[in-house]
């Protein structure tokens, strides 16, 4: 039973719930206390010990049912095994015949292995079938399954473990006899083979749900995180959204430290005197000056013209997912001209908001100079000493005046100015790109085309406030 628990913990871990060794030990003690008998109590008890957040509790709920319903079947089968000698198996020509599938391999002289296998396939003894599947699964290493595409391979391996080769040989032999009797036997064998295959497939799929599903998800996410936004298909959007949310959460936790630094060097005389008035002014409690850190304030200025729109979508998605951390966020969008789009983004669903925004700022004919001029003239007051101005755009201004004077003024006014560019560095300054001219005024100018880049850039921005 101990093994059942450790394997369940392994399944939990592979499903993404972090279970530490201490927690595993606690789980073992919990089982000692509550026992295995009452499944409901066991479930809630393990839930309090192993799952330490709402997300982990959801994983536990789901996995517990999946895992222990299978485990129950397996243990029922295991109980059937010792009783095998005593309990006469109905429908089984002889008690000894169960031996070969019980895993003893080739030593089955007592009966015909092929006949036994077909009997198993006919489902005359579900307990025995479950046990045979369990053993074959363990021997084939089905628990190692990581991808849905591997299931075919594991099904075959399991069937081989169960001795399907002998059955197939018999099948070939029956077919080659080319008479009615042979055909009938072949048909029966064929039925047995496909029944077994179905059982094995169900088994492998269940295991995939327990051990493989989340590993596959993690792998897909890893690939997606490194893929350029430009190359994302429609089908990736949902997965991407979840991924962005997870990354944002991680980032928020990383920067969630109290924004307060004890400045140990400076004594707060006033507060020290007051705190020690009760001790006749003898300074028992020394109070040091505390330096408070700024809350992050981000002003995002996004180019929403066709060439960059896809990138903007994910930047905004990321920034909004960070809401918990970045409470002060102003968003401006521009193409031909600039508009404050914080409100539509907050109130409307994302897709609708984006469409409304593009309608408002006009598409085509991006003019960076005019946008910065409008930002400085109409919304100059939102940029102050603690603001990070975040520009997202390719810097392709259709040969209009880049207005470096205005840009410099914005840069001076803000705490930092970060420019994220979807184009690789080799293209900067080519054609109508003014990036190299803007570059001297930026605190950071970086290429940003994947979620990983985005996370790194935002990490860097938040770092300035830690």
């Amino acid at each position, binding site marked *: 039973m101990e093994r059942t628990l450790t394997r369940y913990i392994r399944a939990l871990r592979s499903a993404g719930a*972090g279970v*530490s060794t*201490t*927690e595993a030990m*606690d789980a073992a*003690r*919990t089982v*000692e*206390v*509550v026992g295995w008998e009452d499944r*409901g*109590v066991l479930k*809630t*008890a393990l*839930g*309090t*010990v192993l*799952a*330490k*957040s*709402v997300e982990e*509790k959801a994983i536990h709920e789901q996995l517990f049912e999946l895992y222990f319903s299978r485990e129950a079947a397996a243990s029922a089968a295991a109980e059937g095994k010792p009783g095998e000698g005593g309990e006469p198996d109905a429908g089984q020509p002889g008690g000894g015949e169960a031996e070969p599938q019980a895993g003893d391999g080739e030593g089955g002289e007592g009966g015909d292995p092929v006949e036994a296998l077909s009997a198993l396939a006919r489902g005359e003894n579900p307990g025995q079938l479950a046990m045979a599947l369990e053993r074959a699964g363990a021997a084939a290493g089905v628990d190692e399954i990581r991808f849905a595409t591997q299931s075919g391979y594991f099904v075959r391996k399991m069937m081989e473990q169960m001795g399907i080769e002998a059955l197939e040989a018999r099948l070939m032999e029956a077919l080659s006899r080319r008479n009615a009797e042979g055909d009938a036997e072949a048909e029966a064998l064929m039925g047995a083979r496909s029944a077994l295959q179905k059982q094995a497939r169900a088994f492998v799929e269940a295991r995939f749900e327990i051990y493989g599903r989340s590993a596959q998800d993690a792998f897909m996410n890893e690939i997606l995180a490194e893929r350029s936004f430009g190359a994302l298909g429609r089908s990736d959007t949902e997965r991407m959204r979840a991924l962005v949310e997870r990354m944002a959460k991680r980032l928020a*936790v990383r920067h*969630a*430290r*109290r924004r*307060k630094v004890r400045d140990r060097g400076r004594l707060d005389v006033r507060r020290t005197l007051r705190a020690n008035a*009760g*001790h*006749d002014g*003898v300074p*028992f*409690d020394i109070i040091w000056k505390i330096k408070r850190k700024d809350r992050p304030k981000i002003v995002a200025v996004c180019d929403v013209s066709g060439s960059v729109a896809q990138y903007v979508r994910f930047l905004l998605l990321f920034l909004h997912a960070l809401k918990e951390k970045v409470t002060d966020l102003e968003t401006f969008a521009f193409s031909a001209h600039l508009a404050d789009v914080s409100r539509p983004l907050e109130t409307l669903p994302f897709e609708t908001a984006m469409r409304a925004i593009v309608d408002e700022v006009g598409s085509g004919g991006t003019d960076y100079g005019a946008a910065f001029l409008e930002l400085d003239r109409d919304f100059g007051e939102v940029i102050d000493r603690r603001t990070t101005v975040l520009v997202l755009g390719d810097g392709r201004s259709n040969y209009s005046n880049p207005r470096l004077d205005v840009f410099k003024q914005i840069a001076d006014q803000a705490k930092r100015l970060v420019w994220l560019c979807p184009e690789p560095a080799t293209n900067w300054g080519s054609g109508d790109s003014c990036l190299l001219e803007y570059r001297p005024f930026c605190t950071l100018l970086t290429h940003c085309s994947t979620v990983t880049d985005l996370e790194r850039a935002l990490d860097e921005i938040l770092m300035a406030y830690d």
Partner: protein
Amino acid sequence: MTDMATGAETPAGLASVEAVTSMLAKSGYIATPEIATAVYLAHHLRKPVLIEGPAGVGKTDLARSVAQGLDQPLIRMQCYEGLDESKALYEWKYGKQLLYTQILKDKIGHLVEDADSLDEALHKLTGFQDIFFSRDFLEPRPLLKAMEQAGGSVLLIDEIDKSDEEFEALLLEVLSDYQVTVPEIGTIAAQVPPLVVLTSNATRELGDALKRRCLHLHIDFPDAELEARIVRTRVPGVSDRLLERLVAFIQAVRGENIRKLPSISETIDWARTLILLHADSLDPALVRSTLNVILKRQSDIAEVAGKVEALLDGGDKAGR
């Protein structure tokens, strides 16, 4: 068979999960199986329970009811930003120490009178040094106080998410070993480990180290049936008809898109308010005039006030 090495006796109220449920019911707390299991395990595994969930679902109340049910003192520590050692663990009684210094100053001449050399005088004095930092001058704060209860206690560390991260680290020793180390004296271990309950409103993510040491319990808004049972226990004067409609309405309001959802404590307050107003059923005008009891934001009140009829109707249908 299950009691852990600490050797403490298991109170009758903690003998089984069912016993916990009925003990809590006697204290007026209706516990779900999750809650009862967590309390049961907390005692048998000697682990603190960390309770998370929205405000007003009875997190703090659970600790109070357990203390009442076990007839043990409840020692409560409210966390806040800037909470530190001297307010949570112990503090030296500075005033008393000062007074002691004064007395010592007066007596010191007398004490070292018969010493011939300075060395001898110093030797005589060293014996008195330790008295300064002894138990007599120690002012126990909640955590130390909980360790010192001979008959056991329930220690409630309320709203741990409001405290600083450094404070969490301070708690680790107390929570895993049930002991407090005072550098000048040594380690003070609990005679009977207290049952520790921590609550959090999840305003910030708690550290992994703390979470690992605790059992985790998440209390969410209750379903209609459970909520009705809770209100009935807390507000015995409520009529069945009113109770049913009131709970159905609250449940419907929780489905609305509002900022601050009403919790059980609001439901109970509302039930009390309606009884004071001698209402035995709900009508839209009454609901509108008492909305401020269950909703705490002006924008939420405005949102719900416009839909009272629909919500009452929906609740009615769900109620039937």
